[in-house]
């Protein structure tokens, strides 16, 4: 007896569940689709959306890239290549810098890897070509005249690189201690 009631309950629940599901799906026929039709309707993307890559400059107008190859190493699809050189004053720079956007997957790992904030990703994603070779961007295509997401950052003024002044002149760095004296 208990078994039979159980069976009836189960089948009743199944029928109720099925009816409910079908009714919900049918009601969706008359609801407005949530689709945004892309070429006619363009949503404004957040400023930090990751798409096309740029190379930024520091506040002094110098290229930030020091050609450390970390972005090329981090890139999962190996679309970044460059050659590093050293200037007379000891500052490193990339003599050429190339990104193959036909292969780029906009993962943002290069941005993560960059120690100088040189590589940054911008919201511009609408670029495509029939000829793949025109998607290869050289350094002059990538360089911009601003600092991107952080305009004030200057790698050489911040880190312990002896470039713009002696020890203790960098931002956030304590004055050098005179180890010969105990005076405060």
């Amino acid at each position: 007896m208990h078994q039979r009631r159980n069976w009836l309950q189960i089948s009743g629940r199944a029928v109720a569940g099925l009816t409910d599901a079908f009714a919900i799906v049918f009601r969706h026929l008359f609801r407005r689709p949530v689709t945004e039709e892309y070429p006619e309707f363009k949503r404004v993307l957040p400023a930090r959306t990751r798409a096309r890559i740029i190379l930024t400059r520091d506040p002094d107008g110098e290229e930030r890239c020091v050609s450390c190859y970390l972005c090329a190493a981090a890139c999962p699809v190996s679309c970044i290549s460059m050659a590093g050189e050293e200037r007379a004053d000891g500052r490193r720079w990339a003599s050429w810098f190339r990104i193959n956007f036909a292969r780029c997957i906009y993962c943002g790992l290069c941005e993560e890897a960059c120690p100088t904030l040189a590589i940054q990703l911008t919201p511009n994603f609408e670029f495509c070509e029939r000829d793949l070779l025109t998607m290869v961007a050289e350094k002059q295509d990538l360089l911009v005249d601003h600092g991107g997401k952080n305009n004030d950052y200057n790698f050489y003024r911040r880190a312990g690189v002896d470039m713009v002044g002696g020890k203790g002149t960098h931002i956030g760095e304590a004055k050098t201690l005179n180890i010969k004296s105990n005076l405060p």
Partner: protein
Amino acid sequence: MSLWVAGIIILIVKLLLVLVALLLFAAYLIYVERRLLGFFQLRLGPNRAGPWGLLQPIADAVKLLTKEDLSPTGADRVIFLYAPVVVAAAAILIFAVVPFAPGWTFRGQPIPGVITDLNVGLLYVYALSSLAVYSVALGGWSSNSKYSLLGAIRGAAQMISYELSLGLSLVPIVMMAKSFSLVDIVNAQARCPFILLQPVACIIFFISSVAEMKRIPFDIPEAEHELIAGYHTEYSGMRFGLFFLGEYVTMVTLGALVAVFFLGGWRGPWLPPLLWFLIKVAAVSFVIIWIRGTLGRLRYDQLMHLGWKLLVPVALINIIVTGGVMLAWGYKV
């Protein structure tokens, strides 16, 4: 002699008209299904090619026809190349016995509203649907791919299992119409469509034929999450298109068969018979798409249990009950 020639010409014209109508209906069913699924899921569906995307089937056909026709290494080439033909041919050939109108008269000569009124029409439908297994099994086997082979084995097992309940569910219809001919079955529903007298048979027939078509919730042979595309994983271009076309022609044919067996065929008040027939076919197709939008996929063991432990026994009980009731009401052969 001229009458004979006229008969041949009328037959050929009718064949062409039915074929073109069937293929167009199937092609636009693909479009309608994609649009409806879009709406069910709060999307839009294809709406780019032409106004409201109405040219989408043509764009799809052009794309499929111009794609490269690949065959995998190690495939059994001849079987691989010709397996897709079977499914499309079987689906189209079923329509030869489906009555779509009561018929017309042209200059005093009657034109029946069916291509051929076979006196074993129902069994002919059954035979062709059982031949459709070959395209699945052979196509999957000859692809030389494990996904295809698994899909083919599942497909063959599923189609054999559900053919049984498909056939058994139609026995009460034959008992009540006293004929295998589809025209006679439509005529037997002059007073009352069989769906009111045989609701159980209708449900079993519908479920079994959805399983025969390998559509959701019975699409285990082509379960994309496990088997990529099942038995037609390795197919490309128009050969894949034939599998696709076969599936949708089968859907139209199923709609027509449900209309003929249970909904009274072309019978209906006020509207012309052909229109009634089309409305019924479209309604059945809509229900199939609705099911696809609603249900998930059954597990393999659930599928087999549903077929063998529920549908077949219920169909057998339905036959016995129908026979008993008919005897009690004083039925004479």
